[in-house]
């Protein structure tokens, strides 16, 4: 009995307390809204939004609903986070490893890079890229072609668009390539465990990834053409590129700022991870005759990753949440489109802000879940 009291009563009280606080806050908001004649409800989501958005991954126009506008904002947030996470990971790993280099120049430039980008507030970096760096770009009519067919201008980066025929066949071939690679890898590791034979898995994987989709062009009726951006005159002095894809400068500035900033933190995680593996491991691995490459791949990295993943997950979460600073430079992310324009046009502050908060929470928890799954996968498996 004593034990039960000891264990449960404080917990029940704590839960009760939390429930009461939330109840009170809800009630308080409700009375205040009633007093001011504000209705609460989510009906507005199905109403016509009647505003346009600059940049969208899905078909969207002002005659679509607020729910669709929400989706547009959400996808834009996910897009900028996804691109930035990939770039910051690549940069972070390179810089992190470079910091451990024995070359004085490489080591110190990496250290300077980290200290520089880590210690300037992110919002300022976003402003720098948007208002200073990208503003120095030429107007569309004066832009020089990069790689022959892309144009970097003050109005955005114009790249050729891919026009596919039978895209689905190509995608199926790609999928088939990935599945066969997984099967082959499993087979290879079984072969190694049972018979001690090694096959060049990487080489075969690359070959599969190239050959299978290539076959789809020859036999599957797949064809790919590029639509190249062409200069079009809007008025006597103003031009634009038409055809192709336009990446707005807002997106570019945001990706640059987010990935450069976060890459410094990732770099530190990587450095900490590698330094966290004891020297003896490396020496022992070398002494049993593994090549330096094998030492890194089979001994150091598996152990380092376990140290790297959890803090890096945090950085990915931070990056995603930081992407909401997009609103400062007119990139139409979730905050700008939904918690900005939609909120203003409907006046549904409480509803929209709670939906937005829940959405960020869901994105963050999803990223955390994926990273936890990966972390579990690479944990030491006690045998």
């Amino acid at each position, binding site marked *: 009995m004593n034990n039960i009291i000891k264990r449960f009563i*404080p917990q029940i009280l704590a839960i009760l307390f939390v429930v009461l606080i939330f109840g009170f806050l809800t009630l308080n908001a409700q009375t*205040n809204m009633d007093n001011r004649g504000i209705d609460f409800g989510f009906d507005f989501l199905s109403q016509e939004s*009647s505003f346009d958005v600059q940049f969208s991954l899905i078909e969207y126009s002002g005659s679509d609903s607020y729910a669709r506008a929400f989706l547009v904002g959400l996808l834009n947030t996910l897009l900028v986070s996804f691109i930035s996470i990939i770039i910051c990971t690549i940069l972070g790993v390179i810089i992190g490893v470079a910091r451990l280099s024995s070359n004085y120049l490489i080591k110190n430039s990496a250290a300077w890079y980290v200290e520089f980008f880590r210690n300037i507030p992110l919002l300022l970096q976003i402003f720098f890229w948007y208002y200073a760096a990208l503003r120095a770009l030429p107007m569309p009519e004066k832009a020089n072609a990069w790689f022959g067919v892309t144009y970097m201008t*003050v*109005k955005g980066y114009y790249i050729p668009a891919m026009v596919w025929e039978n895209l689905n066949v190509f995608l199926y071939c790609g999928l088939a390539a990935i599945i066969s690679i997984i099967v082959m890898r499993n087979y290879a590791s079984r072969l190694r465990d049972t018979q001690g034979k090694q096959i060049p898995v990487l080489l075969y994987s690359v070959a599969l990834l190239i050959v299978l989709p290539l076959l789809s062009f020859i036999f599957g009726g797949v064809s790919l053409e590029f639509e190249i951006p062409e200069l079009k005159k809007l*008025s006597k002095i103003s031009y634009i590129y038409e055809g192709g894809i336009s990446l707005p400068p807002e997106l570019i500035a945001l990706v640059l700022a987010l990935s450069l900033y976060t890459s410094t933190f990732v770099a530190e995680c990587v450095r900490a991870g590698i330094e966290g593996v004891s020297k003896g491991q490396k020496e022992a691995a070398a002494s049993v005759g593994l090549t330096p490459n094998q030492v890194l791949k089979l001994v150091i990295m598996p152990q380092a990753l376990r140290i790297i993943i959890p803090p890096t997950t945090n950085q990915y979460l931070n990056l995603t949440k930081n992407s909401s600073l997009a609103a400062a430079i007119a990139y139409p992310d979730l905050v700008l489109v939904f918690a900005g324009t939609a909120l*203003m*046009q409907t006046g549904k502050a409480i509803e929209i802000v709670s939906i937005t908060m829940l959405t960020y929470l869901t994105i963050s928890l999803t990223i955390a879940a994926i990273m936890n799954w990966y972390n579990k996968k690479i944990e030491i498996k006690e045998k």
Partner: protein
Amino acid sequence: MRKIMFKIIKQLTSVVAMFAVLFAFSTETMAAKKSKTLENTKKRGFVRCGVSQGLPGFSNADESGNWTGIDVDVCRAVAAATLGDATKVKFTPLSAKERFTALTSGEIDILSRNTTWTLSRDADIGLTFVGVNFYDGQGFMVRKGSGIASTSEFKNGTSVCTNLGTTTELNMRDFFDSRGISYEPVVFEKADEVVAAYDAGRCDTYTTDKSGLAAQRTKLSAPDDHVVLPETISKEPLGPVVRQGDSVWEDIVRWSLNTMIEAEEYGVNSSNADMMKTSNNPAIKRLVGAEGELGAAFGLDNEWNLRIIKQVGNYGESYKRNIADTGILPDRGPNELWTKGGILYVPPAR
């Protein structure tokens, strides 16, 4: 056992303490509900007024932090009427996005920030519009060198800079959609960011209320290289807004604005207001508090309107000082009295 009991009692007391805090808080909100905005304003000693983050002619602060503009004058008029001193106003600069939340949450008591009166804003979101102090319409600004002379010359792919959270965003869509032109909206939260982006060539055109275009043009690096197109694509009646649910405060703000307009109509201004007390015209005498008990209806003394006219001036003086003399819009256009061919017409103060 005693130790456990002690622990539980300790936790219980902290819970009780938290409850005490909660209840104290809730009774306070109950009290605030009963008290009128006017009482709070008198107690505080200043009027809390939401304005723009800097729109010359409407609400703009100089280097020393003095606010001027016709929107500012509405708040000053309310301060003169309720507190007897037009300078007793605390101005809160707000972005278009923040403005309504600031008002409904009680951070400010008057929103006088070139805000368009629309049905949904008036009916839906807990706001009440009290009148119109500027009749405006949305227009476009382009570079002179572009050779564009009319909105009919816009082509597919035009990029348009504008402000977030405004009726402008909606009008722009109506305009381009109805003409079947595809366009790229680039929306910023702050007006200064819009100006900077347009100035840098990010956008081909800048759209907002025409008065706003005229005012913002002065902030461009080469104002003379830009021109406002003649077409007006929307109706934008701009006016002060108050929270729903305090009808006395609503009336005070409405009639402070009306007093300024009516004073111009009767030729009463800041320099002749005192002399007008002995006028033969009863309407003028009422306007300067020499006849009738107009203030009593709001719980104000009888000279509330005289103070507005003496300290802030009539609408014509305010317009001249803020908009005409600063070169923003020398021509009053629709913002002229109904007796002189404009559409300014207010109900009689009697």
